[in-house]
């Protein structure tokens, strides 16, 4: 992954990633046939509610967010999904509509906990968990990429505001040291 903007002045490294290819899929995920088809097309299981598996995230009971792996294109995946699922389905390339950030450092949890009404203690939120919520006043979703690295996605229109918000929240000596 490459970054368009990085700030390492705070207690946590905040980085805005360059365009990440991703696809939103709307389909009835409770349907067994659809799940089986998706498993085949995505090359992995459909994640359980509020989970992320192999860069496929559970967004809602009828929605998945799929991060397209390097080397393949969102266009290809959109065509594959729209043609492959034999049920009412809609896959859309949302790469240009989203912004993705990385938060790297031991205190990444504390930066997010400042603005999100979520229990972010290591026991309550671990690798594989995926949470849609708000950060400050911005609708976001985040998950753990590694033990000390969060990935965060929000609408592209919020990119600059979100970056500034994260840099501000990550300032040195501003973290409560709770976790």
């Amino acid at each position: 992954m490459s970054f368009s903007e990085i700030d390492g002045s705070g207690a946590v490294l905040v980085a805005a990633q360059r365009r990440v290819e991703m696809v939103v899929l709307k389909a009835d995920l409770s349907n067994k046939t659809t799940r089986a088809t998706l498993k085949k097309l995505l090359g992995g299981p459909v994640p359980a509610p509020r989970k992320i598996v192999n860069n496929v995230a559970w967004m809602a009971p009828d929605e998945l967010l799929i991060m397209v792996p390097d080397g393949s294109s969102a266009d290809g995946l959109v065509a594959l999904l729209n043609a492959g699922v034999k049920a009412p389905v809609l896959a859309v390339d949302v790469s240009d509509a989203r912004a993705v950030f990385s938060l790297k450092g031991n205190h990444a949890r504390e930066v997010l906990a400042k603005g999100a009404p979520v229990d972010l203690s290591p026991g309550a939120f671990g690798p594989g968990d995926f949470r849609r919520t708000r950060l400050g006043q911005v609708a976001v979703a985040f998950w753990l990429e590694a033990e000390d690295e969060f990935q965060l996605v929000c609408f592209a229109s919020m990119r600059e505001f979100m970056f500034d918000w994260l840099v501000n929240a990550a300032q040195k000596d501003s973290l409560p040291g709770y976790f």
Partner: protein
Amino acid sequence: MLLLKCPCCGVEGEETEFHCGGEAHIRRHATGSTDGEFASYMFERKNPKAVVFERWRHVFGCGKWFHAARCTVTLEVFATYGAQVLAPPKPVIAKIKARRPDWRQK
């Protein structure tokens, strides 16, 4: 602060993650109804003290609508349940009765 559990995605969040959609289980009066019925449907809302049924939307989460039964006095949430019902289901009523024995459903 209210603590609501979204029955669609299972998230237990506080109220800033949700948005209230007003009184639940309202009967729509439109074509063929009298002016009085329509005015009542449009403008009149119950405003009880204690137990209320409301519609809520998990606006910062999965985006789905659901119902909640809660108390306006103590902010206790008795239960949340799916949006695809016309009246509170029996288990929800039972939960409210267990906490508020004097309460009568109108």
